Structures are given as structure tokens and as C-alpha cells.
């Protein structure tokens, strides 16, 4: 058996050959699905919420509540970003359920997200302390390592958690196919019966639970670090 990276579907003839991989294709699919969902949930918005609008408002309230309680009232402006990353991460990881390769099983996707978070934290720090006050922090070389390790560890955490679930599900599927060909002979080899329902039970843990936890941890860490960065110095000493 073979575990490979995302397959390259084709290369664009212009711009020096940009590679369009499975990750890119599925990622755009996820974006289209999310836009469709948003269009569905926000069509016919009324003053008194009804039906599907209640669900959408519940989600927005949840995100704003989390941001306010974790990052503080001052950082409420990052709530749209948090909600976007949360939905994107969950939908990307859950795309494994329909049988495509999820975009989060590619370090490029999670690295892009954690880089956005990294720059968001830097911008928040500059906003809170001023540009030169922010630079003062880097006088200590250990702080530089600390700051640079954050995006690396965030990207690798999300990537490798989803990767481990993905590989386990692949292995279980292969083992079940092998088992059905052993038990049922040629019929089982042509039509792997055991592969039909049993992985669904395990997918509940590896796909649903895992991707929800990872999306939650990613937004939680973003909120915690932005909240820490937005603290002014004098307030910090009082705590």
C-alpha cells in the first residue's frame, strides 16, 4: 500500500506552471459549499428570526460569545475571522466523509491559516504597544524562538492530527477489503462487503470528533494569543 501526498491534477500553462493539486481543487469545492450554505441560511432575513435564520444566529452568537469570553471585549473585531476559520476547518476535514482527500491533510493549508494567525497576533501587538514598544520584546532572543515556534506548532498540530485519522481510516479500509476477499473469495475481492458499513462507526471518532476538536483548538489558540497580545502593559502588571 502507498500513502502519498496530494496528487497534482494539472499545471497551469501561464504564470510559470502553478500546480493545481487535489488540495486546491477540494479546497475550492469546500469554499463553494460554504458559500452555498451561507446563501441558503441568509436568504429572506427577517427582523424576527424564524426557521433556518435561528440556526445561523445561534452560530454567530456562539462565535462572538467565545471571542468575548476568551480574547476579551477589545478583540471582538477578530470574530469574523474566527468563525471563517472554524467553518472552513470543519468542512475541510469532514470532506473525508464523502471520499475525497481533505485539504487539511496537506501542510500547505494549515500553514497558510497559521501564518494568517501569526500576522494577526503581530498586528494586535503593534496596535497595543506601538511599533517600537512591540520591537522591544525581541531584545530577548528566547522571545524570538517563542514567537516563531507558534505558527509552526499550530500548523503541524492541525495537520498531523487530521493526517493520523486519515491514515488510520485508509488502513482500516484496506484491512476490511482484504478480510472480505479472504472470507468470501473472488466475490469478496470484486465487491468488498465488509468495507461498506463498519468504517462509518470508526469515522464517527476519527473524522467527526477529531475534526471538530482540531477546529476548536485552532480557533481557541488564536483567540488566546490575540487576547494576550492585546493586553496593555499596565493592565498586565495588575493581574
Amino acid at each position, binding site marked *: 500500500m502507498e500513502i502519498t501526498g496530494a496528487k497534482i491534477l494539472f499545471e497551469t500553462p501561464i504564470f510559470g506552471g502553478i500546480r493545481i493539486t487535489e488540495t486546491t481543487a477540494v479546497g475550492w469545492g469546500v469554499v463553494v459549499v460554504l458559500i452555498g450554505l451561507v446563501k441558503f441560511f441568509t436568504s429572506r432575513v427577517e427582523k424576527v428570526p424564524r426557521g433556518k435564520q435561528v440556526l445561523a444566529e445561534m452560530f454567530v452568537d456562539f462565535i462572538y460569545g467565545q471571542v468575548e469570553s476568551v480574547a476579551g471585549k477589545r478583540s471582538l473585531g477578530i470574530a469574523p475571522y474566527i468563525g471563517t476559520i472554524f467553518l472552513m476547518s470543519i468542512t475541510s476535514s469532514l470532506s473525508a466523509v464523502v471520499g475525497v482527500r481533505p485539504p487539511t491533510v496537506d501542510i500547505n493549508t494549515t500553514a497558510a491559516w497559521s501564518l494568517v494567525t501569526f500576522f494577526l497576533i503581530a498586528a494586535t501587538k503593534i496596535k497595543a504597544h506601538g511599533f517600537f514598544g512591540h520591537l522591544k520584546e525581541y531584545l530577548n532572543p528566547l522571545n524570538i524562538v517563542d514567537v516563531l515556534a507558534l505558527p509552526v506548532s499550530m500548523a503541524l*498540530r492541525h495537520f498531523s492530527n487530521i493526517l493520523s485519522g486519515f491514515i488510520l481510516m485508509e488502513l482500516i479500509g484496506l484491512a476490511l477489503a482484504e478480510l472480505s476477499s479472504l472470507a468470501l473469495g473472488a466475490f469478496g475481492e470484486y465487491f468488498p462487503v465488509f468495507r461498506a458499513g463498519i468504517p462509518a462507526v470508526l469515522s464517527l471518532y476519527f473524522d467527526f470528533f477529531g475534526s471538530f476538536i482540531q477546529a476548536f483548538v485552532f480557533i481557541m489558540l488564536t483567540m488566546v494569543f490575540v487576547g494576550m497580545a492585546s493586553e496593555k502593559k499596565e493592565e498586565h502588571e495588575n493581574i
Partner: protein
Amino acid sequence: MSMDQAIVMGASALGAGISMFGCFGAGLGQGFATGKAVEAVARQPEAKSAITTTLMIGCAFAETTCLYGFLVAIFLTFTNPFTNALVG
């Protein structure tokens, strides 16, 4: 298969196994954290949701070292840079 290749492949497999020792510490740390969280919930059941959220974040942090070991093992097993370097 040449002798060189056999040695490199065997050493890579051993390295993959050894790198999974990183999970030992992560499991220990998560166990301690969960035990303390259970104590905290028993002492203050009304703070359960806040404790659970903090525990999740702490476990995610503790898991990171284990995941680095896991990544090394995966790279050694499936993409194997050392045998590729030897052949290419």
C-alpha cells in the same frame, strides 16, 4: 536489493519505531492533566464547562510533542528520504 539499501531501510524502520517513544510523555502529561481536571470538577461542579475547555487546550498542547514524533515516523515509513537519496 543491495546491502546498503537493506541497512538504510532497516535503520529507517528502527528510527520510526524509536521516534514513537515521544508518545510516552504526551500520554503521561495528558493523564496528569485529566486527573487534576477531575479533581477540580469534583471540588467545584459548577465550573465544569470552563474546566473542560481549559483541559482541551492543555491536552492539545501536551499532544504536540507526540505528534512531532508521529510525523517523523510517518515520513520515515512512507516517504523515506534516506532510501530515496541512496537510489537517486
